[in-house]
Every structure is written in C-alpha cells, then in structure tokens.
C-alpha cells in the first residue's frame, strides 16, 4: 500500500483500501452503495483538500448516512485526509475510525453521524450560515440514504430549503431500495414538490453522476438521486 501523503491513489485503489477495514460486515452493502458517489464528489466536484479544512471558502460535505462508512474512510484515505495506516484499526478502541464517524476524530469529516436524519438539517443550517456571512461560493453537500429519507427531520429540511431558495445546498440520495415503503411518485418527486431541482441517475456511472452533480440549478437547492443495485441483490 502506498503512503497516504503521496496522493497517487485512484478509483482502482478503493477496493484495496476498503479491504483493510474489517469488522462491520453488517454494514457492507451500505458501504459499497456510496462508493462511486463519494469518489466522483471527492475526485471531481468538491473543492476541498486536507490543507483546506479551516478555509471558510471550502465546499462542505456532510455524510449523514454514517453507517457503513468504509467507502467514506477509503475515499478520505485515498485523498490524503486520513492516513492509510489508520484503516486496519477500523472500529478498535484506539482507532479514530468508528463504525460511525466522529467529526472530532476524523480529519476531513464535517459532521459526526450514525443516527439517521441529522445531516440534512445541519446542512441547511450550514448553507444559511454561509449565506449570512456573504460566503456565496462554497457549496454544501449532504449524502443520505433512501431509507434514511423516511426520517421526519429530513422532511422538515426538504420542505424548508426549497421555499427558502437555498441554492448552495445539495443533497445526494443513494437509493439502494432499502426503504420498506416505496415513495409514491419516486424520490425525486418528493423534492420537486418542495421546490428543489432534481435529477435521477445511475449511481455507478461516473460521467452521469458528474453531470448531475454539476448541473445548474439557479435559485433552488439541488438533489441527485443516485440509483444503485438493491441492498438485497
């Protein structure tokens, strides 16, 4: 394995990095469902780097779906936020990398998460806070799961952000069909009804993800529904 600081990691390295982490097999499908979304965001979209974490102008990525964080840690390691040497300790007493991330322990993590339904409301506040300080450039991203979308707190955030015109706010819903009750009309329709810009794409197609992530959405928050294989498949 290469050293985290040489920044030579590519997408092809991610399975190897994830393989260094063991002990959270229950969350395995949840971990891999987010892999491509996370990679495209960190590799091509987010204006963040290990040296910019104190920069108010950086983009913010809030991982709300904190369970199954192996793909997240692998991407953070690949991009030099956390040392690759940390990965094998995953979940152990002395490791900063838990089965749910802690922002105070993981360099690069904007929030700690694990309990569902917290990231998007915090992202709303982050977008409001940036706007109040005249920081119009940074974009705020929150990643949630399709079942996590069930949480009422997310519905509060969705219903508020559209009419509030929070156009710096972005959500990516990784849809692996894990919600017990399918959302009538589809996930995107829920956001569109609240005034969001919405796109649904193949969550394994990097070009489609990139195009959806960077699509213009003036005056409105933007959601990308990234569909991946069902959790049970």
């Amino acid at each position: 394995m290469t050293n985290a600081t040489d920044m030579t990691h590519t997408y092809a390295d991610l399975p190897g990095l994830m393989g260094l982490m063991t002990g959270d097999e229950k969350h395995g499908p949840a971990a891999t469902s987010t892999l491509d979304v996370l990679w495209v965001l960190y590799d091509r979209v987010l204006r963040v780097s290990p040296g910019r974490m104190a920069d108010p102008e950086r983009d913010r990525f809030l991982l709300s779906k904190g369970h199954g964080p192996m793909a997240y840690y692998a991407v953070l390691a690949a991009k030099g936020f956390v040392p690759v040497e940390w990965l094998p300790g995953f979940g152990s007493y002395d490791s900063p990398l838990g089965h749910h991330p802690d922002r105070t322990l993981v360099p690069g993590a904007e929030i700690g998460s694990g309990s569902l339904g917290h990231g998007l409301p915090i992202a709303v506040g982050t977008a409001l806070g940036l706007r109040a300080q005249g920081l119009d450039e940074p974009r705020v991203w929150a990643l949630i799961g399709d079942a996590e979308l069930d949480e009422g707190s997310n519905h509060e955030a969705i219903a508020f952000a559209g009419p509030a015109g929070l156009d710096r706010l972005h959500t990516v819903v990784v849809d692996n069909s894990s919600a017990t009750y399918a959302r009538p009309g589809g996930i995107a329709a829920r956001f569109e009804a609240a005034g969001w810009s919405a796109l649904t794409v193949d969550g394994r197609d990097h070009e489609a993800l990139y195009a959806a992530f960077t699509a213009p959405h003036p005056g409105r928050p933007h959601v990308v529904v990234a569909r991946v294989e069902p959790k049970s498949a």
Partner: protein
Amino acid sequence: MDTMRDRFAPVVSRLLDEDPRVAVVLAEIGRDGFAEAARHHPDRVVNVGIREQLMVGAAAGLALTGLRPVVHTFASFLVERPFEQVKLDLGHQDLGAVLVSAAASFDWPAGGYTHMAPGDVALLDTLDGWTVHVPGHPDEAETLLRHAVAAGDDKVYVRLSVQSNGQALPVDGERFRTVREGRSGVVVAVGPTLDTVLAATEGLDVTVLYATTVRPFDGAALRRATRAAGTDVVLVEPYLAGTSAAAANDALSEVPHRVLGLGVGRRELRRYGQVAEHVAAHGLDARSLRERIGSFVGAAAPA
C-alpha cells in the same frame, strides 16, 4: 411589570446589531418580536416554520460556519421534542448554541400539560457541558441572556418564566448569592422561587442562597454556607423536584449531610387554572414551604 420573555426579543435584537456572529433561529413561536430585526438582518433571523428538529439541526449548521445561534421556543418543543438533536447535533458535534425557552414548568396552566416542561433541566442534566441559567426577574434575564450569547461557543440554556421575584438582584452568570445567613440549615432558592422562599423562612435560623445559574452548580458556595449553617440542605427549584439533588450531594460528598429536594412533582396534575394554583398544588407556596423546610431543619419558628 414586563416578563422575562418580553425582554428576550429586544435584547437579542440589540445583540444582532452589535455582534455579526449572532443568529436567531425560530420555529414560528416568538417571530413577531423579531419582525424588525429580521428586516435589518434577514440572513441572521431564521424562522424555519413549525419544525423543531430542523430548528436545532439548523442551529448546529450555523454554528459549524462560526456563527452564534440563539434558538427559541417553548421549553417542551425546544428541549424535549428535539432532544436527540440537542444531544447529537450540538453535543456530539462539539458545537455551541444558546437555547432560550419560554413557558417554563407551568406558565400557561390553562394550556395544560402539552405546554408544560418541568423536566427540562433534568433532561439537560443527562448531557455534558451545558450551562443553565434560571433568572428570577426580567432584569436578571436580560443580564443572563447577554452572558449566554457572549459565552464563546458554550452550550447555554436560558429558562425564561412568567414567575418572577419582585426585585432583581445582581447576577454574574456563575455564582450563588448569599441573601440571608443563619445557623440551622441552608436553603437554596432557584430563580423565581426566591421571594416565596424568603417569606417561608422568615424567622427561621437558616441561610438562604440564591441561584440563577444552576449548571455548573456552585458547590463551593454551598460548602461555604454549610460551615456556619450546618449540612442540612433544602433545594427549592421551579422545575422537577430533586433536579439538583445529585449536584448538592456531590458538593457535600466529604461530609455527612442531608438534602431535601423541593420542586414540581413528577405526577401529572391534570389541572388547568392559574399559575398560583399550580404553585400551591406542588407545595411551592410560602405556607407549604415553611412547613416542609421547618420540619426538615427542625428549626420551626413560632407561628
């Protein structure tokens, strides 16, 4: 006299003018008081609608960007309904905010139990690192609100009530204040209970301490008071009885002592009516307090 809550919007509106870090987050309740401030600071006065989980989560997001959020609604909806947001979005994220509640334990008795929150301070006691101010007068509320907003990135709860003492005392946002000195016990009166406690202990040989900042608990003041007055301690709190009993026990762990916790009863009263009727029903009127304090310290004065 105006109420503590009447001071809230004017004071915080001035702080919005003075300090570009300050932001207000509301969930409809209290929005009229900030109409003018919202015109001057449209991006720092946020009303999220009737969405209390979002209210606390959004406050955490504001804090993440470096702002100082002040969050306000009734205590039931501020501390109890979004409790996990208070625990995780503020506590676990290591972020600060000022939570300012209204309605207290039973400020609107005719409204019934849905709008009562006698357990708010006890609930916050399950979390680490919260400062809790319980002012006993609108002037004290104003001072403590300013302390709370100025307290860096601390987590601060300010509990506003329509119950009030007749006169304000100087408060510093930290220490208990000695109001009366005696030799046969210590009575700690929290916030708006002071006038009643003073009336109840008239002629009793007890020390009365006045507490408007109850967390952190001023254990040093309690220990000092017990040196002259002995280690019989009565806590009179305007919320759930015994909320500060553990803190008082910790303060006196080195010496044999007794603690009696008086406050709002745990059992749901299921009565409407007036504040004074609820005060009496919970045994917090002067006559009941005199009986309970007097028999505990064994120093009942002639009637």
